[in-house]
């Protein structure tokens, strides 16, 4: 059965008799306006037609990939460079982005084929029992990650002497400002513009004059970890995986694809968007590793993060301006992620409780949507401001928790992407299923190894010997 063939909206601009809501909403009109621009670009001829289409249709993929280059992720890459240098980890990080592409591409197809968000599909197809499990995973993960984003913003601004009680509320205000236009398109473009600052780590890495021969050799030869596997190395491996593939990304990209209004015809551009986002984010991630590689053997770790010690330690290498840009880069990383992650929570909530959920909603139409968004942000910001809390543990575990929560989330995604009733001919091809299965097995393996390293360190030592 093709579910969508049965859906026909009632097209009336005014409320029908006995109804208090019009069949056509402000959200529909805003989205239709975006779609009419896409239609007009599609009808254009000449070489600029595709560029125009690409410009109109990119967004969710770049936002999700660069958004995931968030505070904890950039810190994870910084700690990777400072602790292990470029050897094993450069190709490993590139591999994690390949995993992210495989996974995120499915959300583009799902969103374009069904026009439904991820949480909505899980609830509808698997029922509330499994739906609530997945919502709890998402909600907890998102909340922890949001706290970490505000810690990143706080740490970045502490370099300039900005106290936390100004830095954190200031970030909340900036985040809310992106919403005031009540237009998905404007919100997306503002967030994209801020997200591009993530690329600042690339010129900063160049300032350290990396040994390109070593970099090229590391990528081409991909040798095992120098010094062998250890608990610390495993934690960094898990953090780097969690820095690229996390449950909120699945929910966000599918919901944003739907909110943007992508259709089956746009899937090609959705894929390009995802690839482009992955390339940009991988570039910034690799740059961060290169940038912090000169800090090797200086005992830098995650614990040095909160007082902006990474930026201070890098200052002799990249200069004062470089350190300033580094700190601003950390602020951007936290801010963009806070914007996208809070949106993913609000989308999922609206989808589950069947309340309007779109960034095209006016405030009075989307009270529940915007309230959830604001409450998530305010609560996380509040926690990040509590003095004396061991916040460093949030930073340490947030990516690990993301890796551990990924296999169940991927199973839902896998089953939905292979669900012919909702996907029709857009079900995943066999090769995509093999790749997804490989990613799941890899993530479970990494998670189990982590569990053994914590609970039975002696057994872990025997295993890795």
């Amino acid at each position, binding site marked *: 059965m093709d579910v969508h063939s049965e859906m*026909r*909206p009632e097209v009336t601009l005014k409320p029908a008799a006995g109804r208090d809501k019009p069949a056509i909403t402000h959200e529909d009109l805003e989205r*239709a306006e975006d*779609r009419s621009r896409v*239609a007009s670009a599609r009808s254009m001829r000449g070489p600029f037609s595709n560029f125009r289409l690409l410009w109109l249709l990119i967004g969710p993929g770049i936002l999700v990939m660069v958004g995931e280059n968030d505070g904890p992720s950039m810190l994870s890459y910084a700690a990777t460079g400072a602790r292990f240098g470029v050897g094993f980890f450069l190709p490993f990080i590139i591999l994690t982005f390949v995993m992210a592409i495989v996974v995120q591409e499915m959300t583009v197809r799902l969103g374009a084929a069904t026009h439904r968000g991820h949480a909505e599909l899980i609830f509808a197809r698997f029922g509330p029992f499994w739906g609530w499990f997945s919502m709890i995973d998402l909600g907890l993960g998102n909340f922890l990650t949001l706290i970490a984003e505000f810690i990143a913003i706080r740490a970045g601004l502490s370099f300039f002497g900005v106290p936390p009680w100004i830095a954190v509320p200031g970030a909340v205000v900036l985040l809310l400002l992106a919403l005031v236009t009540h237009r998905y398109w404007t919100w997306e473009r503002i967030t994209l513009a801020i997200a591009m600052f993530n690329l600042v780590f690339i010129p900063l890495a160049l300032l350290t004059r990396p040994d390109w021969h070593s970099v090229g050799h590391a990528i081409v030869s991909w040798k095992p970890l120098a010094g062998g596997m250890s608990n610390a190395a495993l934690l960094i491996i898990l953090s780097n995986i969690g820095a690229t593939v996390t449950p909120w990304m699945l929910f966000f990209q599918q919901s944003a694809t739907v909110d943007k*209004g992508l259709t089956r015809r746009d899937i090609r551009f959705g894929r390009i968007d995802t690839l482009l986002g992955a390339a940009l984010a991988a570039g910034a991630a690799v740059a961060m590793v290169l940038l912090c590689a000169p800090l090797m053997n200086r005992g830098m770790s995650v614990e040095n993060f909160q007082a902006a010690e990474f930026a201070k330690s890098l200052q002799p290498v990249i200069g004062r301006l470089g350190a300033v840009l580094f700190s601003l880069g950390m602020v951007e990383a936290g801010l963009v992620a806070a914007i996208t992650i809070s949106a993913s929570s609000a989308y999922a909530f609206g989808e589950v409780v069947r309340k309007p959920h779109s960034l095209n909603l006016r405030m009075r139409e989307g009270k529940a949507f915007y309230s959830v968004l604001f409450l998530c942000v305010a609560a996380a910001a509040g926690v990040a401001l509590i003095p004396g809390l061991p916040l460093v543990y949030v930073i340490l575990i947030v990516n690990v928790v993301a890796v551990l929560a990924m296999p169940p989330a991927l199973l839902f995604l896998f089953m939905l992407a292979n669900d012919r009733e909702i996907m029709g001919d857009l079900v995943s091809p066999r090769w995509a299923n093999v790749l997804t299965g490989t990613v799941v097995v890899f993530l479970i393996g990494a998670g189990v190894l982590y569990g053994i390293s914590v609970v039975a360190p002696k057994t872990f030592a025997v295993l890795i010997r």
Partner: protein
Amino acid sequence: MAGTGITLNPQETSDLRILASLEPNQFTAAKLQGLPRRHLKASEVLLLWSLRVYLLLMIGVVVYQVFGGVH
């Protein structure tokens, strides 16, 4: 609208033209219709439960590690 007896003001006419850019199932009203529940096979339920147990165990490990670290 010709032949229907309905008169639309210019704004409504323009809105209707723009709305034609949306696919039928992209309208908010269409999305209010639920999707049918999928029948889960025993192997799928087993897989879902296995991964749920895996996640709970792993979260226990994380809590244990954080608790150990804090104390």
